[in-house]
């Protein structure tokens, strides 16, 4: 899969799609995110790694507007923005594909892809144009595993569900797609499909944030890697500046050589 022209994010990449500066988030007395800085570029896959409890989920829920950040600056395509609700995020073009998938089992593929943003003619749902658009999007992503776009989501396999969830993001021409452990529960072949899809997503110009625990996935598909350690960003670097051991060290101890958090950060 690794495309030879991949520049690993080292060359000039232009204006970032999303930039977080000094973001904090607490739940009651527990501070989950400390002074987080993160930059995400269009056409690049940024792998967000970190141990359980490092704050990955809180970070993406903040970006998605589900649990808004307490303080800090968020810039989207160079503009200061506030993310107070899922609607704010959706309006900007941020789409999150959740680990638990957030699909309604009792609805079919088309209905899920358009959920909350149905096309209408007057009061009537415009089923036909939705079906055409859903099918075009899936075809554009070279998705060939679905038997019918009118299949209920409950009848799909894990990989197919993941595919539908990702295709939804593409359908809405999202500028930033955040994938929460999309390969966690998948077999080998299905993981392959999803990783291919992630790469295609970035090649089509979307900024992609890819959360994972799997180092193989990180080095297979990512252009940049951001490591979270106890709610702080230990590193946010192009993938060719780190190796596997370093990333694992960043995840487990927050430091690796001259990369990572300073001693006083690690103190508190």
């Amino acid at each position, binding site marked *: *899969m690794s*495309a030879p022209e991949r520049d690993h994010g080292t060359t000039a990449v232009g204006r970032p799609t999303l930039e977080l500066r000094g973001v904090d988030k607490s739940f009651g007395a527990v501070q989950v995110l400390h002074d987080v800085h993160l930059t995400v570029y269009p056409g690049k896959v940024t792998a967000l790694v970190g141990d359980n409890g490092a704050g990955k989920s809180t970070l993406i829920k903040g970006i*998605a507007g*589900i649990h808004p950040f307490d303080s800090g600056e968020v810039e989207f395509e160079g503009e200061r923005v506030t993310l107070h609700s*899922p*609607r704010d995020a*959706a309006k900007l073009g941020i789409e*999150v594909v*959740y680990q*638990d*998938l*957030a*699909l*309604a*089992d*009792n*609805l079919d593929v088309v*209905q899920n892809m358009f*959920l*909350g*943003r*149905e096309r*209408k003619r007057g*009061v*009537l*749902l415009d089923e*036909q144009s939705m*079906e*055409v658009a859903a*099918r*075009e999007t*899936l*075809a*554009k*992503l*070279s*998705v*060939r*595993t*679905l*038997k*019918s*776009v*009118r*299949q209920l989501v*409950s*009848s799909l396999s894990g990989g197919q569900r993941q595919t539908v969830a990702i295709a939804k993001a593409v359908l809405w021409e999202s500028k930033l797609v955040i994938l929460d452990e999309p390969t966690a529960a998948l077999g080998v072949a299905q993981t392959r499909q999803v990783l*291919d899809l992630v*790469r*295609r997503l970035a*090649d*089509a110009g979307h900024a992609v944030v890819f959360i994972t625990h799997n180092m193989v996935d990180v080095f297979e598909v990512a252009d940049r890697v951001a490591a979270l350690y106890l709610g702080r960003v230990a590193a946010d670097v192009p993938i060719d500046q780190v190796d596997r051991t370093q990333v694992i060290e960043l995840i487990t101890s927050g430091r690796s050589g001259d990369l990572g958090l300073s001693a006083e950060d690690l103190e508190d």
Partner: protein
Amino acid sequence: MSSNTLTAAEASGPQKPAAGFEGDRQDNTLGGAVRGYLDKLRGGDLGALPAVLGIITLGILFTVLRPGTFLTPLNLANLAVQATPIIVLAMGLVFVLLLGEIDLSAGVVSGVCSAVLAQVLVQSGFGWPVAVLAAIATGAVIGVFTGSLVGMVGIPSFVVTLALFLGWQGVTLRLIGQGGTVPVREPVIRALANENLPLAVGWALAVLVAVAYAVIELWRWRAKRARDLAHQPLVLVVLRVVLMAVVVLGVTSILSQDRALSAAVDLAGIPYAIPLVILLLLVVTFVLSRTSFGRHMYAVGGNAEAARRAGINVTRIRVLAFVISSSLAAISGILATSRLSSVTPDAGAGNTLLYAVGAAVIGGTSLFGGRGRARDALLGGLVIAIIANGLGLLGVAAYLNFVITGGVLLLAASVDALARRRAATAR
């Protein structure tokens, strides 16, 4: 390699997806459709099958047990009118059940609304339009109250409506008065269940319904095929259209026979309550299947968290489900009032709610949320009405009547639970 696939897909163009979705095109034979239906059954989605089988078996059973009385036009017309309040109440419950909630107070809400109707007619002397509006508005307000307690305060609907089940009975008692009965002699209200459409109008309506159904179905089939969208085989569409025409015209012809017991009077035609129920059925079906509000109802019932993340206002949907349920309960109360020509303090109590929940569940609406249609209420309501009517004809003791009806609801709920388990393991 990845970029190659992308260009390949783009080159083949969005109009002709190169591969995949073969199910959308290939299964368009009758055999394919039958296989698809059997797969659905095996997957635990029984649809209308239990209700249709129930209507047929019970019909045969009671015809055999009471040959001279059950299958007569008089009894069938009675049965249909008996079924109307159950069907309408069940239709409202479908909205609540779709969300995986329950409204145990729907029956007594219909009682409160009947009491309001009667008091407005009798005490204040307003005409029937004011009384009907007052009854429905009462239902809607009650729905806002129930829905807010469930959706905003967050009390489980089971507890809220159990409390209200008792509370509203008190209100009905207060409105009607202990031991009293308020007779309703208003001609329009009484006509709903006791008067019939003129024969010609009945036939015209029946033909209109059959033809409109055929035209809409065939037109939609053509439009889908023209745009190469997923569609059923034509044979199946035609079969459905024919079946609909047979049922509608068959029912009309039975109800158009003179069913008077004495030769001196003329009693024939479709009772007014039936077109009213059909109209409600069409409206509810339209709302649930063709509007984004309906789509959101299903989404909240299927996965409330997914719906929330998709930007759907889940609280609003919850409140509205109870508003619709209680408003339809009011209409159900009006139909019941018309049938009895009076309102008693125990209106809507007793087995009213059990009948309606049973109707929805037998019809195919799931108690676990996410699955249900308006027609479930119609088919299930007919099953319940046949049981009630048949047991009445058999002169079964009251205690047995309760036991049997309760048993039928349990049976339907078991089928629902087992189907759901089956669907979960089939994945």
